[in-house]
């Protein structure tokens, strides 16, 4: 059975697009604009900075964050790690995927305060010392991207997949990557790249 995360979410919300859109509009109370996690927390709330510590790509990092800052924003804007890409900022597309304690998460859906004391891996933490991981190399060799905007998210999801299942078949790859969207439609080459990386070197 192939059910994408988006598919599940839609089922939970009731399936019918018009109804679900109405729910969204009700929840957000706005017709337009940034429907982001941050916008749900009013700026007027007195949010003190909180000091958090995370293990980021193997380094201990201390950073002071406001309570409504997403992990995505803190990574990109406060820590200048722009390899993590903002897409929908609404938990739908997967372009901002990072690893939280080794598991892929949408960084737009995590408040930075949630990751205090935890381990984060971004695309900047994949490969070592200028050497590409086997998966990164396979993405290049198989042409597993076109514009490349979704690529960091795919590589993180695929890295997590290969760590938990070093010998996936094509269906495993599709299921493992069903939470990431590639609008260019590089999916067939992405599947090939992940399978070829699995057959080659360990994808660490």
């Amino acid at each position: 059975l192939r059910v994408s995360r988006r598919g599940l979410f839609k089922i939970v919300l009731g399936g019918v697009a018009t109804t679900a859109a109405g729910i969204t509009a009700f929840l957000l109370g706005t017709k337009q604009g940034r429907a982001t996690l941050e916008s749900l927390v009013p700026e007027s709330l007195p949010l003190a900075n909180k000091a958090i510590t995370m293990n980021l790509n193997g380094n201990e990092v201390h950073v002071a964050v406001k309570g409504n800052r997403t992990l995505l924003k803190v990574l990109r804007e406060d820590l200048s790690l722009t390899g993590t890409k903002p897409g929908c900022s609404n938990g739908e597309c997967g372009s901002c995927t990072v690893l939280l304690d080794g598991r892929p998460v949408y960084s737009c859906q995590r408040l930075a305060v949630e990751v205090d004391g935890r381990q984060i891996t971004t695309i900047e933490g994949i490969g070592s010392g200028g050497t590409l991981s086997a998966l990164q190399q396979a993405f290049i060799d198989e042409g597993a991207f076109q514009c490349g905007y979704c690529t960091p998210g795919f590589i993180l999801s695929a890295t997590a997949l290969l760590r938990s299942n070093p010998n996936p078949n094509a269906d495993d790859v599709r299921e493992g990557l069903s939470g990431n969207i590639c609008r260019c439609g590089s999916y067939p080459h992405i599947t090939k790249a992940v399978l070829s990386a699995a057959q080659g070197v360990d994808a660490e």
Partner: protein
Amino acid sequence: MSNPVIGTSVPDVRGKERVTGTAQYTIDLSRPNMLVGSVVRSTYPRARILSIDTSKAESLPGVKAVITHKDVAQIPFPPLLSYDLRLLAGAADRDVRFVGDEVAAIAAETEEIADMAAQLVDVQYQPVPFTLDAETTTQPGAPDVESPWFSGNVQSPYSPLVLARGDVDAGIAEADVVFTGKYQVPPQAAASLRPFSCLAEWDGDNLTVYNDSQVIYVRQGELAELLGIPTANVRVVSQYMGGGFGEDNLYRFIPLAAILARKTSAPVKMVMPQDYAFEGSPNKRHAASFTVRLGAKSDGTITAMDLQATYDKGAYLAGGSSVPYVGARAVFNGYRVPNMRYTTYAVFTDNPPAGAFRGYGGVQSNFAVQSALDDLAAQLGMDPTDVHYLNCIRPDDVLEIEGEQVDFTKVGGSAFMEAIEKGMGATGWKSRWSPSGAASSSGHLRTGLGMALLTYGFGHKPDTANVSIYVRPNGQVDVMTGTADLGGGQPTTISMIVAEELGARLEDVSVSLGDTNLPAAPFLGSFGSRTTFIAGNAAKLAAADVKQKLLAAAAGILGTTSDQLATSYSQVLVNGSGRRASFSEVVQSLPGGASIQGSGEYVHSGQTSRSGFQFGACFAEVEVDQWTGKIEVKRLVMAQDYGRVINPRAAEGQMQGAAIQGLGYGILEDYVVDVTTAQSITRDWLYYRVPTITDVPEMVTMAIENPDPRGPFGAKGGGESMIICTHSAIRNAIANAIGVRFTSLPITPQMVIEALKAGGGQ
């Protein structure tokens, strides 16, 4: 050539940047003391603005500037472009035209402040009647737009636009069977994941704008006009483009950012919210409706093809008349029918604006024609492949198209027959297809086979390309071209063409691109499958030029004449002797440590007979569950004429990606505008369902290589081809599976169930 590059699968030359996250898209840029912009957008589809009060917004701490229509140039409608260049609504004769139209813009210290300030701008609207229906908007009494260039909401003077050959009425009169069908297609949002963004900064009177753009020289000219400064003072940079798919239209937030940056004397970054991709952005396919009339002999020979098309332009005129025009060309380039007529209207409504999206114009008309031909075949009791084979343009045809005699032998020949044969072979068509579905159908699961041909022009519009090449003293070959890297492998293709022509090692060639300070190639931008053909030709000419100069310099140090020399692997070799010199040694022999420079200019006529023809076919196999209505595309078989394949893996990626977007348009992507509010309700990736990896069927891609004598190494453009016909092939396969001939998209499970309940099908 002793080190062949063309025809080998070469990895993307900027792949490492993409897989490591170091590729810098516009949204990744920042500057010290940078301000962040936001835009106030209309909540009404059509309204007069009575007043705009910006005082509350301006007094919010951290807000640096708020601009309204009073701060932007009131440029009158240019007669040729005929879209409204007044960036913000609010002047007496400048109403808002759709939900999401720009009213005011803000620059502030942070995104949060800029967004809050946008909420504080108090706009008083007087709503006026609006119209969303392209059919009724042209009727007397419909709310009319205010421009002198529009009349009755029909774009003038270009509507109706008629392309014709022969005598359609005579063709209908001699037909044994006359088929008439109506078809319609919805909008399709490009829905790129990267938010639209730009960064504008001034240095004195000079403006630099960073933007993910396919059309940097067009942007440059547009910014100069809107800001009232010389073109030479504007630089546009587009290094990496997240999700291109067509953006040759006015994006108002970009000049607004430049105006805010000038007003605040600070760099301004503007990131549009996610729903902009679905509403405010013209990066969408136009909805269109068609009436198709076909006359045919009982043996399937088509005697007349008559189409009437209405393209819903939405608000404004993004894409101009070129979209319906290209749609017409995508029909005429396909069939040898003696009597053809295509009448098209470009109509304004208060729907969100639409403009350019991959395969613009052609995706719409393809659905009408390919569905109609399939329906005609069913009416005649024929195999659809026979109808196509009989009527498609043949390799040696000479046909009148747009008043010109086009000799297909001079453009590489038509590849339709070969594409049909390849597609039939790979699907096992002859043994599996029957009028009532494929042989494997059983029970409530029905399998169907369907096919559609594609044709499309590439390199529409006259254009020029200039490329400069420097061979450096260290042997490095630097290629300068203003083309954009939108993910189709453009810099890799250019590198390969230069390496092949010059006899250089591919790893010695590097391409600088995406900057208006570089020579323009192509000047109009990287769209319409034109980069390989137009910029590629200029790159090949430049490589030939620099090679000649290199050989002349080498002749001196090798003690021979140029005609005795050849190049290979970045070395100059003397024929029939072991003597050689590396490119580096040759350049270093020049006085003063100079580089050897060459340049090439390619002038491209946009005329039909001299621009490009894309040919191909898509064969689809679907399985339809008659109990649940679920449609599963099991397999797509594609054959496409690339002329000559430069980079096979990249070419395969373009075919697959375009087909996946076409699959989305066929059965998944449902763009819905609420008729009471005129607001798009499919405004994110949850409700606007683009294909995920789980939607991808087995794909077979076959490249046909009929060299186009005018292309670099025979190559043609082909980045769009497969999106032209994939949705049509899937529609025809569904018709084959269940006997229901749908006339609109996307075909959803609900539509399947309702049609079967209503007694349609078998």
